[in-house]
């Protein structure tokens, strides 16, 4: 069994059916790209994996390491290794980035029965990781994402991912709103986290991001289910032909 198994997942949001029998497996060590037109259910999949409220699973299951996570709260999922890099990271006024990172890391460690990190250990971890991502000490002192540019917010997401070391990382349209330089920094940050111990799902509308984060497999999502899977060349094919071929199908 793969590390992540999404089985025949049906999801409704406010009585509207978004996912329609989605089935997907992702192995550890694998980077799976999920591409699809707007409204195909890409972000819904990301939120359902992370455990957001108001997403009603009517059928199917999501297994992580063989265990269903659907009844778990978002923090329990995080402790089990799920991480979602948000498409639109929210601003959290009044909560310093450092405090936020430390609270999150220690909460996860506590849930897993591990010891909390000492202050010097934690500071070193953050400093080293932030350096790679071009995140300054000044940014770390500021409230989470408050006054950050679009690129800074995305880098902050990758910083959190690097600190929390998830087993399943889901990147929701991490490329949206980024110029090419910012995109390169973010992609390098993600590539540094590729590991045989980690499964990654990269959700994107455009092929461009996949030039920098080269996927092992590409799944095409349309109307709430996977309609085609293939290697990285599938992304190029989509770039050339567009999504029309899938949207028309079975309509």
């Amino acid at each position, binding site marked *: 069994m793969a590390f992540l198994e999404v089985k025949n997942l049906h999801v409704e949001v406010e009585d509207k059916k978004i996912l329609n029998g989605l089935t997907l497996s992702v192995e550890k060590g694998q980077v799976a790209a999920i591409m699809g037109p707007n409204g195909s259910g890409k972000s819904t999949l990301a939120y359902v994996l*992370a*455990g*957001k*409220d108001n997403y009603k699973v009517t059928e199917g299951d999501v297994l992580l390491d063989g265990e269903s996570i659907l009844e778990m*709260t*978002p*923090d329990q*999922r*995080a*402790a089990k290794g799920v*991480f*979602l890099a*948000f498409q639109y*990271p*929210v601003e*959290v*006024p*009044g*909560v310093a980035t450092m*405090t*936020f990172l430390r*609270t*999150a*890391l220690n*909460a*996860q460690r506590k*849930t897993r029965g591990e010891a909390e990190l000492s202050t010097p250990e934690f500071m070193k971890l953050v400093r080293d990781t932030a350096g790679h991502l071009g995140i300054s000490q000044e940014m770390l002192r500021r*409230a989470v994402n408050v006054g950050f540019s679009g690129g800074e917010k995305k880098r902050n997401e990758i910083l*959190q991912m690097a600190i*929390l070391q998830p087993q399943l990382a889901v990147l929701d349209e991490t490329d949206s709103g980024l110029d090419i330089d910012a995109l390169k920094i973010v992609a390098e940050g993600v590539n540094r986290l590729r590991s045989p111990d980690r499964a990654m799902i990269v959700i994107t509308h455009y092929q461009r991001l996949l030039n920098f984060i080269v996927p092992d497999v590409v799944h095409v999502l349309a109307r709430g289910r996977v309609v085609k899977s293939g290697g990285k060349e599938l992304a190029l094919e989509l770039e050339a032909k567009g999504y029309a071929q899938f949207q028309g199908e079975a309509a």
Partner: protein
Amino acid sequence: MNAGVRAIKTPAEQALSAAYAAARAKLPGKGAIVELREAAFERFDAAGLPHRRVEEWKYTDLRALMRDLYPLAGLPDAAAQARAQNAGKLLAGVDCRRLVFVDGTFVPGLSDLAPEPGLAIGSMANALGKNDPLVTTYVGQTFATDDVAVTLNAALMGDGAVIRVSAGAALKRPINLVFATGSDKPSSAFVRSLVVIEKGAKAIIIESHESGDAQVNAALELVVGDEAHVDYIKVTQARALHVASLLTSVGARAHFNSFAFTSNAQVVRNQSFIRFVGEGTKASIGGVSLLRGKDHVDSTLLIEHAAGHCESREQFKAVLDDESHSVFQGKIVVKQHAQKTDAKMMTRALLLSDDAEADNKPELEIFADDVQCGHGATAGALDPGLKFYLMSRGIHEKEAEALLIQAFIGEAIEEIAHEGIREALMIAALKWLGARS
């Protein structure tokens, strides 16, 4: 109104009249002070306790909330003083000059009376008794109002602090007026303080109330001279009934900051009457109230810009859990000649429970034509998007909520310039949060 058709007096109103009749001969003061008391009592006798049909008291129906009057507190004996020893704990870590009042009476033995140049400290009962010119000049004059709580205080005022900071003096330490309950039986106290900060002087004045089963009516008249820098902080924790009035007049080119921190409060009304009488002054007026259970906290403001070119910022926040009830009434009045006034008022209530109630009533009354004034009010629950973001990083629900509440409160507390006081209040807020089930 026809005096003949007033409603039948409530037991509390009757008890207040009886208390005044019994105490009037013993209350400190003579001459003009006696006239002030008599006139005040007559006004109270005619109006009675305010109720929900009195606009300013609509959300805090004192007639209904005050079922009866607790007996007026006597002088604190040794046992009462001993019980009050622990009061003022919230600010124990702050290096302050503490002046302690037990059941409304000044206790020099518990107070720090070390001399300091430019500072004069006395007791209100003493000052009234000897017709101290400072008291006869200012008491009842700083901000004249017909408000019934202020009126009752004028009739029955016993003791309190009289503080004068001379022109140009800068106090080394904050002064903390600690009002504590020492009586082991329910009691009531009417305390009146006068603080005069003269031209160019600098002072931090803290008024702390940590009351047990006591009814407290406190009034503090604060005169801020031209070019003075004054920070006034009020900390209130009250188990029974607490009504406090701040009566302030602020001179020209002054800096005035006021902050009220209220928690563990059964029924509290903090009313501030602030008038800007000189040009070019900057003021920040704020507060944080933390409510749970059936707590009721009312913050009522009357800000009067009577001189032009002043800037005032009002920011009040309340966090409400369970079935608590917060009230914010803020009225900014800009007089006709107070041109170039810049006043902005904001109030926010964070509701943690469906059964909590927050009433926000901001008002602007502007007679000048060249001013910048605005107000805003919000009441709502914690943002579910923020909560999900924190939880998706592994933070437990209660901890995520605590972080967000802390951030909400912190934004207001950060306005306090004095680091020690700021930290002590943040710790008190965290303690309150920590007790959340």
